[in-house]
């Protein structure tokens, strides 16, 4: 069993990064949050366009994503800035349940400048405190990770996705937790995913989520042809959604899926290995944002034609098997497994290459997306605002 060096948080969860988060509750608070981040070195700010006049399940999901992001084990402490105090408190209270420091600064009654000053003084303390947190040796079973592909092409299904599948098997066997999603991109292979479910209850829950998604598309009178596969997928040789989905599921590995989560379901990490389907959109930034909000601390992202997504709080490791992409977009690619296409290495060797690189990232090596400041934070929005 492998060990890594991570940050053990107040609630025992293990992080691999040590962010002090400046979290705007709503779109109007982005300026003040960015103001704090400019004054205080070592803070991570995640501006976004939502948080006003949302309602129902959409609002619940928004709170789930914001509080989950703050609660993520890669975050040492969080500052929530909101125009109104009540909603900001709701998110902060959820984050506080992890035991980590969290503070709220409302803008109403203060204005931006006073808010920035107060929040910056607190952020200064949090950054200094976070700087004294040290990595300690922990079992790899404590890791929660996620996987997704983007700008896929046929090389994804041939090589990069099966390589990730090798890593998934290895992680689940060691007791770690792996999340996957992309509900729309399972179309044509949903029966294979359903067969991988550990029992009938999970199978029914998964198929209900899948059919609800299908019904949403139908209700809109839409045909996803043109969106799925995307133009990038088609350029890379993928012809149909079925072909894309069959390539997509190559990264799931060979273990049973023993957990199914709808948008709002929390992940309860157990001691046993867990492979978990999470209802997500297939948009790269949205899916990675939701995985991080559910507790993923590292993401394996395979790409064919060259998706460049990153995330502000979790490292996103980019893997390709397309030799042209590896050469043309080298600054984005962490692991190149294109020699698998020439049969120069075995699938097991390619998987081991990805796994060893992931261990380095878990231990602190920055990914290319982190160095390039690819900090995409995109909460999923379910419907229009009130």
């Amino acid at each position, binding site marked *: 069993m492998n060990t890594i060096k991570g940050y053990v948080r107040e609630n025992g969860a293990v992080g691999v990064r040590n962010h002090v988060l400046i979290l705007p509750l709503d779109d109007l608070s982005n300026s003040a949050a960015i103001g704090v981040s400019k004054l205080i070195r070592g803070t991570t700010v995640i501006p976004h366009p939502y948080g006003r006049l949302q309602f129902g399940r959409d609002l619940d999901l928004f709170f789930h994503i914001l509080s989950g992001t703050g609660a993520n084990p890669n975050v040492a402490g969080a500052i929530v800035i909101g125009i109104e105090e009540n909603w900001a408190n709701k998110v902060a209270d959820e984050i506080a349940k992890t035991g980590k420091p969290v503070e709220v600064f409302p803008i109403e009654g203060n204005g931006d400048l006073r808010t920035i000053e107060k929040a910056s003084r607190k952020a200064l303390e949090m950054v200094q405190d976070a700087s004294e947190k040290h990595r300690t040796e922990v079992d790899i079973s404590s890791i929660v990770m996620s996987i997704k592909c983007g700008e896929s*092409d*046929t*090389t994804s*299904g*041939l090589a990069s996705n099966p390589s990730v599948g090798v890593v998934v098997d290895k992680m689940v066997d060691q007791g770690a937790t792996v999340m996957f999603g992309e509900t729309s991109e399972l*179309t*044509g*292979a949903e029966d294979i995913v359903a067969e991988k479910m550990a029992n009938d209850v999970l199978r029914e829950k998964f198929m209900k989520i899948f059919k609800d998604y299908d019904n949403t598309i139908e209700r809109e009178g839409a*045909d*996803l*042809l043109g969106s*799925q596969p995307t133009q990038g997928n*088609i350029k*890379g*040789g993928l*012809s*149909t*959604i*079925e*072909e894309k989905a*069959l*390539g997509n599921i190559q990264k799931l590995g060979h273990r049973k899926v023993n957990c199914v989560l709808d948008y709002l379901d929390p992940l309860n990490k157990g001691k046993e290995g867990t492979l978990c389907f999470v209802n997500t959109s297939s948009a790269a930034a949205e899916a990675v944002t939701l995985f991080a909000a559910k507790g993923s601390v590292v993401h394996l992202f395979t790409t*064919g034609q060259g998706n460049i997504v990153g995330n502000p709080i979790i490292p996103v490791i980019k893997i390709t098997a*397309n*030799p*042209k992409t590896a050469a043309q977009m080298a600054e984005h690619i962490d692991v190149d497994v294109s020699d698998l*296409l*020439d*049969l120069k290495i075995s699938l097991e060797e390619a998987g081991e290459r990805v796994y060893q690189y992931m261990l380095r990232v878990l231990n602190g090596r920055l990914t290319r997306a982190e160095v390039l400041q690819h900090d995409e934070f995109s909460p999923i929005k379910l419907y229009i605002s009130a």
Partner: protein
Amino acid sequence: MPKGLIHSKNDDVCVATTDVRKGEEVICAYLENPSSYILVKSEEDIPLGHKIALRDIKKGDKVLKYGRAIGEATKDIIKGEHVHVHNIKSLRWGK
């Protein structure tokens, strides 16, 4: 060295692992057993990642990859031709 790979034994298509030029003899190796292969003469230029027909496919026939139907031929396709959105379509969407 193979210039194409085939996922499963009954598949109708091979994926080019390098840019293939018209008239080239392409070795398409089986992923499951790379020492066995099908030799196919390319009828047109096929870019890396795109599919080559391993046999003649009739209009309306299902096209197999990963041992599964990935779509239906919208016209007759001959062995060695480029198989893509111009001659196959999804069984789900785009009806």
